[in-house]
């Protein structure tokens, strides 16, 4: 099925995405881009004008979750977010991203300085945690504390460092920028960047949900079939309770995501979904590894590859920083108690 029509259900997105992700297994990045685009998966949230489906973020959730579950080796979240982020100011680029002709990525860590020179802007600085930059055509980077800039990766002055990070399927790169000149039109406003970051938190949670769900399924299957002391592992209460806790965490992620894309959700709900996904997703994938024993360390069982991805996503979204900032905002918004009544 190709996603082109209206009135589609999240479950249909999940099915289409799961099949497309499986098809991508042996394809190059560019082939994957075209394949995913053909199924309508890169433009789920982008406007009709740039070839997208113009649907709410909630419908990108099953797509990204399926990519997580299938360990897709493609910067899907970045393509989804950039298709929409660029649709106003750089519609041709947005269209190229949505159609899979252009590979685009985002540097989630670090920022560059920007100096205006006529119709151009000159960028200097370091950014990192940019997925697949080595092969990407363009890269979105944060400027100082306001806005972002879209940079062509073949610009003069760009040095892409060797891949690093835990996730081997989607390698992350650090990028050095020395006097990189871009058109002033490539600067995106602060609001576009902040919406993009906020949506990214929901989609990271979705990716982690896909990985965590796969890990729990694998662990459950292993516990039911692996026999020790004459019985299935799942006979043991220690194993049953461990798996039950993983299920509790998994449903916590799922419901927190649902809530984060609800009508009344704001930044707090989105941050909470991402943070809960990081905490529970790590516990679930680490727990699945433990239940698999030595098998979990082999390349025959994908559990550790999910664990790598979950931890990479947690770091990419700066979970520690997000948590501290959330706590700071929450504490800051509450007035000291008077001695009559306190809360609210």
């Amino acid at each position: 099925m190709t996603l082109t029509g209206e009135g589609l259900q999240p479950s249909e997105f999940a099915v289409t995405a799961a099949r497309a992700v499986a098809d991508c297994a042996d394809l190059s990045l560019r082939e994957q881009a075209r394949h995913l685009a053909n199924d309508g998966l890169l433009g789920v949230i982008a406007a009709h004008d740039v070839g997208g489906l113009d649907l709410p973020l909630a419908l990108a959730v099953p797509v990204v979750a399926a990519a997580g579950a299938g360990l897709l080796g493609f910067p899907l979240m970045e393509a989804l977010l950039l298709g929409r982020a660029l649709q106003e100011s750089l519609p041709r680029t947005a269209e190229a991203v949505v159609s899979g002709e252009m590979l685009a990525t985002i540097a989630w860590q670090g920022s560059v300085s920007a100096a205006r020179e006529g119709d151009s802007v000159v960028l200097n600085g370091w950014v990192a945690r940019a997925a697949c930059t080595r092969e990407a055509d363009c890269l979105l980077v944060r400027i100082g504390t306001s806005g972002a800039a879209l940079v062509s990766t073949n610009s003069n002055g760009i040095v892409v460092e060797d891949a690093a990070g835990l996730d081997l399927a989607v390698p992350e790169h650090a990028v050095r920028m020395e006097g990189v000149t871009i058109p002033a039109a490539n600067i995106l406003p602060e609001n576009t960047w902040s919406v993009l970051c906020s949506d990214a938190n929901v989609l990271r949670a979705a990716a982690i949900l896909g990985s965590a769900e796969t890990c729990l399924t694998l662990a459950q299957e292993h516990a039911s079939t692996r026999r020790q002391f004459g019985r299935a592992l799942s006979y043991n209460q220690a194993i049953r309770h461990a798996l039950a806790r993983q299920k509790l965490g998994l449903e916590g992620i799922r419901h927190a995501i649902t809530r984060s894309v609800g009508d009344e959700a704001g930044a707090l709900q989105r941050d909470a979904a991402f943070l809960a996904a990081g905490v529970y997703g790590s516990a679930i994938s680490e727990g699945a590894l433990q239940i698999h024993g030595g098998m979990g360390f082999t390349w025959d069982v994908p559990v550790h590859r999910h664990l790598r991805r979950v931890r990479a996503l947690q770091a990419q979204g700066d979970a520690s920083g997000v948590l501290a900032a959330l706590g700071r905002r929450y504490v800051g918004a509450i007035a000291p108690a008077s001695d009559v009544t306190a809360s609210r």
Partner: protein
Amino acid sequence: MTVIETEPPVAATGDLSGEAYRVAMRRWLRANLPASFRSDSAAFSPPTLPQSIAWEAAMYRAGLAGIIWPQAYGGHGRTLREHLIANQEIGALAMPESVNSIGKELAGPIILAVGTEEQKRRFLPAILEMRDIWCQGFSEPEAGSDLAGLRTRATRSGDIWRINGQKIWTSGAYRAQRCLVLARTGPLEDRHRGLAMFAVRLDAKGVRVRPIKSIDGRESFCEVFFDDVEVLQSDALGAPDEGWAAAIRVLEIERATNRMYRAWRFENELRHLIAACKSDPVLAQLVAERHYEVRLGEVVVDIEVLKAHVETAVDALVNGDRIGARGSLAKLHWSEAHQRFAALTLELLAQASLPLQPAVQVARRRFEAIYLQARAETIYAGTTEIQLGIIADRILQLSKGK
């Protein structure tokens, strides 16, 4: 009986829905909850039983109890979404727990599901009007988590049942009029079969209640002894062999919907803790440090996840989905997260500067009580271990086989 002067119920609340309903409920609660009932207030003084009864009856008249029960039985006939809205507003205030939660959230729904028409008309309005306070007679010395080991017996002759046995951990039995008794009609070997439920009057001949002093120094739960207690057939709930199975189905939903205000009360507690800390120079500095920003941030995330469990369960029920054992997830998450929070409140408030600020004294009194009560939250209504077992058996359906 103490009379609590409250404003009359907001006019024509029956017509309100959504945000207008929320605003009406919020306004009534804030205008009428006495300061002495608010554990975040310096004026706090635990309400007496007559005060609690009067307050809860007033809440009912204002539309804040029996929200989803049919109007024919005294209920307000509203939707589960409105029940959620009302509970969000109830949770947002530091209010004492209901003295009749067993009546409103356990006995009532069971009677609605399995009771006769006569029983519904007799029992349900009395619960809402606080004429009958109920307690729960399930646990026994030999049947705690494992109700299949229940030994209290009910034998029938004509229209009369005779009940013999002993219940324990029966919270509030000393103040209750009725006990929801689970008793065995067949042999012990029948395990879960042959269990029947009865609405037993606690002033009946042969009933003896002995309070037990508990962790908070109060006598909140009791032993209840039944010595040849006569119960009329009209007080038997459901058919002897079907009642329990029906009750289990009710309880499945109840576990997901009861005390729905918990997530919002939890939030009220967190806000109170932070407000109290910010009134103390040392604590104000501590909560502005990264260590406590992170720890308090973790509590915020726990609360958001709890709200997500509750709200998505309500959505599922409203959509007519079966929620199965999902209530176990919310109960497990809440009880453990709340215990972590309760320990954090002690840790923070112990670092207050001297002399203690009045707001810190108020907070210490509230949170020391909450800390002790929270230790029970992983035990009552199915221990953590039982909940994990339910998730493993019924949600994951893990094989127990050889």
